[in-house]
């Protein structure tokens, strides 16, 4: 993360990837599948939000571990801001997914295991923010929220393996539903999908670096 704050080249990469993603996702040829039809294009906007969220949360936990090891206040700021952006991506993923589900599954919420897993991870990180809000001492806050961040993440991982076993998912590619692996036209989707994942994830880290910088400036002004 420190490297990303220091350097700039990857921001150009992000912009390039996202311009390509938006053009490619809206204009390129897509496979014709029953029910999905043109909504298959949501793949390039909805799914990368989850990837982005998972990467951001993982990075947040990583910096929480770093904080507990070193006690460096910067790691705590980074961990907190990454979690905030991860939450934002989660909300975007949820909204895009619910919009898509309204037209393909017939209702925005259908007790799908992946929807439930998302709802639970949202709850965990909301609890994390509530926890941060209810401790006034800075050092205690950093330490305790770091502990909770790691603890909750460790409890979340088994859940992601358990939930799909309890019920079949309605998502494409699960429970007998056609996914884009099942068709030989998939390479067209992949050409946009992988850059989209990278682009949106990098955008998440970009937003996080801006937030981290802002927090640093505010802290510095308060000290003066």
């Amino acid at each position, binding site marked *: 993360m420190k490297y990303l704050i220091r350097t700039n080249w990857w921001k150009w990469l992000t912009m390039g990837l996202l311009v390509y993603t938006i053009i490619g996702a809206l204009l390129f040829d897509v496979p014709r599948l029953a029910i999905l039809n043109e909504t298959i294009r949501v793949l390039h906007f909805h799914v990368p939000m989850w990837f982005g969220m998972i990467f951001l949360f993982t990075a947040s936990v990583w910096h929480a571990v770093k904080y*507990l090891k070193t006690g460096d206040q910067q790691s705590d700021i980074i961990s907190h801001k990454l979690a905030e952006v991860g939450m934002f991506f989660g909300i975007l993923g949820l909204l895009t997914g619910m919009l898509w589900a309204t037209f393909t599954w017939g209702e925005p919420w259908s007790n799908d295991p992946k929807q439930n897993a998302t709802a*639970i*991870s949202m*709850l*965990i990180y909301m*609890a994390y923010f*509530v*926890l941060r809000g*209810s*401790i*006034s001492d800075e*050092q*205690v806050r950093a*330490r*305790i929220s*770091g*502990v*909770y961040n*790691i*603890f*909750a993440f*460790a*409890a*979340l991982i*088994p*859940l992601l393996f*358990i*939930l799909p076993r*309890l019920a079949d998912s309605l998502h494409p590619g699960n429970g007998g539903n056609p996914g884009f692996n099942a068709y030989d036209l998939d390479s067209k989707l992949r050409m946009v999908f992988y850059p989209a994942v990278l682009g949106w994830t990098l955008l998440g880290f970009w937003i996080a670096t801006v937030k981290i910088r802002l927090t640093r400036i505010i802290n510095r002004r308060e000290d003066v």
Partner: protein
Amino acid sequence: MSSTVTQIRTLIRKDFLMDWRQKHPLTGILLYVTATIYTVYLSFSAVITPAVWNALYWIILLFVTTTALAKSFIQEERRHLYYYFTVSPHVLIISKLIYSFVYLFGIGLFGLGIYIVLVGLPAFSLGLFLLNLLNGIIGLSAAFTMIASIAVHTHQKGNLMAVLGFPVILPVLLLAITNSKKIVEGANWEGVDSFSLILISVNVIIVAVTLLLFPYSWKA
């Protein structure tokens, strides 16, 4: 080594002794269980199927857990400094984990007794149900002991137990409820073995992470 075991034993004994001498926290919890079950009995009496019976029992257990284990570190606040210099955090958390487990299992059994008397008992293998209850309570008590050690540093301790604990406890709860639903509906060991093994491994993860993280939340 033997001094560690002695320390753990002494700490556990101290917790039970406090329950015995103070009486009001334990009595309060038992009354809470009884009142909740009585409310359930009055409001659900006509609509109970085995699946509902099972779900209600676990929900009651979940809420009782948040209330019962909230005290585990709040009652230690005045002794914090003393522990800090006399025992290692690992000794403290191991003793707390064992104590919470026994305490909660006792309350769970007490609740089950009243529940069976008031709400009734569907026909199923009680031994397997208790075994699954034991398995679930290991995870419940461990996770909420850790959460209690986190929540004790905040301004609204009681509230936060539920907010922080519920999302974390979901894997354990889902597995335990699914298992016990199958048992209540007449499954035998072959029907629940795979989920029981997953539940055991989730418990192992929770206990391991608790042992790893407790020294940090304790030092704060």
